[in-house]
């Protein structure tokens, strides 16, 4: 959920990325980090734990995983952690991606799949989503095992869920009812 504070941080990060001419890279990397953190409870708890020293929480930024990331991405992460905004990392990353997409005349679409998709399928999926929504989309793909199989797409507030996880949940609900 985007709030005034989230928007302000997103604007700041977009400004930094534009200054570095790396908006697309930063939005991709920031979104990937946000999805990774959201899917890792231990990492999420460590980042939002205000009892831990900030220096210790900043080790994520300096970790081997993020060493290859763009400096602007690491700067944005350091700013978010230092400002105790880690709990809003996903919202900030989405806001950055939305702004980046909007700057290209597109709308952000996040697609979650269980396995990596080959390029032809990505293109077909993007085209299908654009036809379905009638909008030009900036599609970000995330591999998420919780999807189990199929695809779950989130475009703004709209979710088009064709995942096996959703079907199994429906089945559980019906069986439990």
């Amino acid at each position, binding site marked *: 959920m985007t709030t005034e504070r989230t928007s302000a941080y997103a604007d700041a990060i977009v400004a930094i990325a534009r200054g570095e001419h790396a908006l697309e890279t930063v939005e991709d990397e920031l979104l990937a980090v946000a999805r990774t953190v959201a899917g890792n409870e231990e990492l999420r708890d460590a980042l939002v734990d205000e009892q831990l020293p900030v220096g210790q929480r900043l080790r994520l930024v300096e970790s081997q995983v993020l060493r290859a990331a763009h400096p602007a991405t690491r700067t944005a992460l350091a700013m978010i952690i230092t400002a105790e905004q880690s709990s809003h990392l996903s919202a900030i990353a989405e806001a950055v991606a939305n702004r980046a997409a909007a700057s290209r005349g597109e709308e952000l679409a996040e697609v979650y799949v269980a396995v990596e*998709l*080959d390029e032809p399928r990505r293109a077909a999926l993007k085209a*299908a*989503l654009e*036809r*379905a929504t009638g909008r030009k989309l900036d599609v970000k793909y995330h591999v998420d095992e919780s999807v189990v*199989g199929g*695809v779950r797409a989130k475009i703004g507030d709209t979710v088009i869920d064709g995942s096996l996880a959703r079907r199994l949940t429906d089945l*559980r609900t019906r069986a439990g009812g």
Partner: protein
Amino acid sequence: MDPIIVAVEDAGGAYGVILPAPGELLWGAVAFTIVFVILSKLAFPALGRVLDDRAAAIQGKMEEADAKLVEAEEARRSYEASVADARGEANRIIEDAKVTAEQLRADILTRAEAEATSMLERAQADISAERDRALQELRTQVGALSVELASRIVERELDTATHQTLVDEYIQQLSSQN
């Protein structure tokens, strides 16, 4: 010879022994009359008064006794009447008690039967509800286990080709909506 017969014969025969001499008889009659007059004047009235008093006393005693008898009879009748009343009252109380006890017994029996029926109905309802709940829970558990098992099989059995097929189906569904 017998001495007595000799004396009689000496006095002039049998008649002389039985009848006194006429002079003796005359004097005897005078003396008797004198004594009788004296007694009539002096003793007989006093004796009559004593006898009258005694008779009056006896009569009074008898009347008193009769009065006491009548009183006793009245007391006896009163007592018997009281006893009869008491017996009647006791019988009435006993009858009332019997009626009350019978009503009480009938009431208790009716209430006990009603309560037993109610308890039975509640128990049957509870048993029925518990059975339905257990069946529902069993169905839910069986359903959940089946789904869980299916989920695990699906997650394990999904290969790359199946994943790609699922993505292709998603794309086709999106396209078919337009």
